[in-house]
Structure formats: C-alpha cells, structure tokens
C-alpha cells in the first residue's frame, strides 16, 4: 500500500515537506507542481500544469505548500478530484475562504489535515502535556513570542504584501494562536496593537502585541516580530496557581556556533542549533501523523476546523489593530 503524493509548491515549505515524504516508508512523491521548473525538479518529478499532473501521476494525496492566497483554489481542485489533502497554514487569507474550504472538504468527504506544526515541536508538545497533567495548576496567564527578521525569501517577496500574507500576525504567530487554543481552550476576545496596515513600515518591519482572553478566564499575550534582525527566537511562559513553566529558545539550544568566516578576521553571528534525533523532526512528525490517520481511517489530528479557528483569532487580531477595538469571538 504505497500512497502517491503530489506536492503543490516547490518553495521553502515545499522543500521541507518533500524531505518528510521521502523519509517516510511506503509513500512516493510522484509529482511536484510549480511554475519554477528548476525548483520543482530539485524535489521530484516536475510539473507545471495541474490537469497533466493529475492524469499522469494519479496521486492519492495532495500536499498544498503554495502561498496563502492560493490555498483555497488548490483545496477545491484536490477535493473535487477526491484526493486526501494536507494544506499548509494559514488555512486561507479570509474567514470566508476558510469557511469555503471547510465546507468543500466536508462535502467531498476527503480527509484533510492543516499544517499547524508547532504542536509537533517538542518544547510545545511537552509544555502542553505538563499543563494537561496539572503541573501549573489552573492556568492563569500565558505569554508566547516568536521573533525574527523580515522574511524576504518568498516568491515575489509576497510576505511583504500584507494584503496577501496578513503580515506577522497571520503568517507567523498563527502558530501560537493554534497552540494556545489547543492548550488553553477557546478564545473569547482579542485585542491587538501592531504595524499591520501602516504603509510606512511595509516590507521593512512588522510587529504585533496581541492580548487574548480565553473563555476559561486565563489571559494570553502573544508577541509577533518581523523586526528582530538577529535570527529566530521563541519564548513561552505559562503561569498558573500551582506553578510556572518557562522556555526560551535562546537559552535551550545545546549547540552554539561562533565561527570565523574563512578569509576574514571578523566574527560571524553566533548560531544556535537545537537538533533532535532522526524521526523526531516536527515536520516529519506531522506528516507521519497525517499518513497514519489516513491509513487507520481516523480523522487527522489537526483538522480544517482547528485551522479555521486559529485563523479566526489571527484575523480578529488584524481587525483589532485596524479598528482599535476589542473583537469578540463568542
């Protein structure tokens, strides 16, 4: 029983997913669809046309790794062809699109998983497990941050177009919104401040501070930054009436490299490295989880409904930034 996978999009995420599919036994990457022929070629059998790809390779699974504005289109194509679907986050750019995606896959009855991979990162998975076990008592306050420099590696610099990407709020701290909802339950209301919608900073920096009130009464604070020039960093703090959990990626990396660049006397940047054993890479784990659920006929562990709810929180944050008002979700 060898599933056949068609990968849509040969960009950064396409490359990461291709590696995961290739590392899994009994599954074949039979097509890579992307207008950039060379990029697609590097990952697998390259195609530029959907219909040709579909008829020639007859995939069982379609893995959607194109920029956000194209998610809905490819979900609809894959669903109407009866294919199982893995779709990257964010589910889509608008709530209407998300609702359409949910309806489409439900009507077509195709198993669909959303790529909220943070759930598979060991520090986040462990933190959730500890919270579930009561390690902090009743959770009261949670803070997360996700900080990086401005991403210019997307095709046509699409991240810089916040109308397409939703900026740091929709593209990056969406990860946190999903994890927070998974761990602490539904969000009742959202208030946010940020640089979204301010042309002065477009393409240069983006930064947002989002306040969440959970239905449980707990309060969350999420920092999203595309304004930190020096590399990627995440932090997590959970305080409850029975204890506290703290994590800082800058302090937990087991390996730190400060290497002199060849031919120069000056130093490079100190680069932290936090490796895990083979088979424990989060992207591998999420795709493996999808495959296992598919084979067992079980619902996928991260559904389009989950993705829709996380996106809803992010879109509420964007609305709050624009209007200066609280957005109630319940």
């Amino acid at each position, binding site marked *: 029983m060898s599933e056949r996978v068609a990968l849509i999009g040969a960009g950064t995420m396409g490359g990461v997913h291709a590696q995961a599919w290739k590392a899994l036994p009994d599954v074949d990457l039979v097509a890579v669809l992307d207008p950039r022929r060379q990029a697609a070629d590097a990952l697998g059998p390259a195609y530029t046309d959907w219909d040709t790809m579909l008829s020639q390779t007859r995939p069982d699974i379609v893995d959607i790794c194109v920029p956000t504005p194209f998610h809905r289109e490819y979900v609809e194509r894959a669903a109407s062809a009866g294919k199982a679907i893995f779709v990257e986050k964010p589910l889509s750019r608008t709530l209407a699109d998300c609702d359409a995606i949910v309806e489409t896959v439900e009507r077509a009855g195709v198993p669909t998983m959303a790529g909220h991979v943070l759930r598979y990162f060991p520090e986040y998975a462990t933190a959730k497990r500890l919270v579930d076990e009561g390690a902090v008592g009743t959770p009261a306050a949670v803070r997360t941050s996700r900080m990086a420099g401005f991403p210019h590696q997307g095709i046509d610099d699409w991240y810089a177009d916040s109308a397409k990407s939703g900026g740091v709020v929709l593209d990056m701290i969406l990860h946190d919104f999903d994890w927070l909802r998974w761990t602490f339950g539904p969000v009742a209301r959202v208030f946010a401040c940020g640089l979204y919608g301010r042309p002065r900073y477009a393409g240069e920096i983006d930064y947002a*501070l989002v306040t969440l009130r959970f239905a449980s009464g707990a309060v969350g604070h999420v920092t999203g930054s595309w304004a930190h020039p020096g590399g990627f960093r995440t932090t997590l703090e959970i305080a409850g009436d029975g204890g506290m959990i703290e994590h800082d990626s800058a302090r937990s990396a087991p390996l730190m490299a400060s290497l002199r660049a060849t031919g120069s006397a000056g130093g490079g940047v100190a680069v932290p490295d936090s490796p895990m054993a083979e088979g424990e890479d989060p992207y591998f784990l999420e795709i493996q989880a999808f495959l296992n659920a598919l084979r067992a006929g079980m619902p996928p562990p991260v559904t389009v409904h989950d993705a829709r709810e996380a996106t809803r929180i992010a879109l509420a944050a964007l609305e709050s930034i624009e209007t200066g008002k609280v957005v109630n979700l319940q």
Partner: protein
Amino acid sequence: MTITATKKPVIGFLPAMLPSAKPAFAEFVGIADPKALADVDGVVIAGEVDQHRRLVQTAAEAGVRAILCESPLATTLAGARALVDACERRDVRLALAFPCRYSPAFKRLREQVRAGAVGDVVAIRATSHGPIAEEQKSAGVLLDRAAQLVDLSRWLLGREASEVYAETANRFYDGSGEDSALLSIKFADTFATVDARWSHSKSYPAAGEVTLQVVGTGGVLDLDMFSQGLALSSAKDGRISWPGWGSDIAVGMISDFARLVAGEPAPNLATGEDGLRALEVAFAAHRSAEREEPVSVG
C-alpha cells in the same frame, strides 16, 4: 554632589524602616510619631497604601522641604491630585518612588534609545512579575507594579498615554484585588503592553523580574532588569536561589532624593505629576477592564 546647606539634610522614614545602604551626605532617621516631621528636611513615605495620602498631607503641613512617596500617592485620582496641588501651594517638592528609573541598565537603554540606536520606536513590551507585597495587597497590582512600568514607558518615550485597554484577573492570590493586569497602551504612534502580575509561586527562586523590549525601525533592545544574579543551588534546602550582585536601585533613588531635599536639581526623580500621570493610566485601565473595551486616558 555639592551640598549648599551648612549641615547635612535630615531625611525621615515613615514608617520607621531605614534602608540598609545609607549615602553619607544625608542623615537618616526613623519616624514613629508624625510630630517628628517638624525636625526633618525631607521624608520618605512608605507602608500601607491607604495611609499614603494622609501621611503626605501631614508631612506637607509640617513644612518638610521634600517628600518621596511610594506608589501610589493615593488610592483615588482625586486624592492624588489634591496632594500634588497641596504640595505645590506649600512649595514642597513632591517625588514619586519609582526606583526602576535608577536601574543602570534601564538608564543605559534610555540613553541608547534617545541617541537613536533603535531608530524610531514603534513599540514597548514591558513585564513586571513578582511575589505579592503585603502592604500593596489592598491597592491591587495596577497601582503597584503596572504604574511603575507606565512611568518607565512615559519617561522613555517622552509622551503621554492617550488610550488604554486592560484585561485584569484574580487568579493567584485569595482576597486581594486584581493580581494580574495586562494593559495595552497607545502613546501617540507608539504602542505598549504592560504585563503586571503577582504570580511567582513559593517555589520560584527569583524575587521577580522586570523586562522591557523596545522595538524600533533600527532594531531591538531587550532589558532584563534584575538578571544580575548568581545561580546558587543549595544542598541544605535543595533549592536554587539567585543572590543578586547588581546595583541597589533604591540607593540610587534615595541619593537623588537627598539632592532634592538639599535644593539641588534631581531631574531623573519622578515627580508628583509623574505619579499622577501613571495613576491616570492605572485607573483608566481599571475602567477598561470593567467595560471590556478601550478607554481614553486623562
């Protein structure tokens, strides 16, 4: 510092709790009876927050030259305004004890920000977490830890807050007012979040933390105000503690207050007006939390 008076200024502490480190250029006395206020040049007022207003009023009427009052000045905005006016009328210099202004790391951050190190500041993200202080319990964490962070933000930006949205909760300690407050504050084009919490459990080794992240068009400054400590793990009690080796910020503040008492300029010291501004935001935050919507400040 130069002292123009012929004798050292006498600074009273009410209640009578003297600081451990005493600068040599002032005399420190504990005050048990408010009548003794007539004998001092300046007074530091601490203790139960609902006594602050009465004590400041008494000190002003006793004719002291300067008063350093712990936050909050009073438990109502009107009360705080009345004190500021009373001190102004009597030519008494009123200062607010916001010791974090005297953190050398914060001062360095402020210098760098004002020198343009991070370009145009777009946001500040501040936290103040720590164990509950008994005398502050009745005031709530808004008037205690949050007010201090509001003051730091105002002083850093040189701007006034125009609007605040707050989420408050009582989740850690029984019987107090709110013990956690998360404020989102607009300072013209810049925004700030202030997260004040009495949440460190008995098992947490550190005394608490104050952090600031200042984000601008040119980069980021991250401050962890009390990080200057050693990690000490003890076989005796099986715990880790963090004996601090950083500068004592209270000493810096008291030294500046001694200057104020001596009639010298002390521009870094928070004034009564600064205290009032911070309180305005704290009370607006309280209203916002009740209404579950942003409210205007001032």
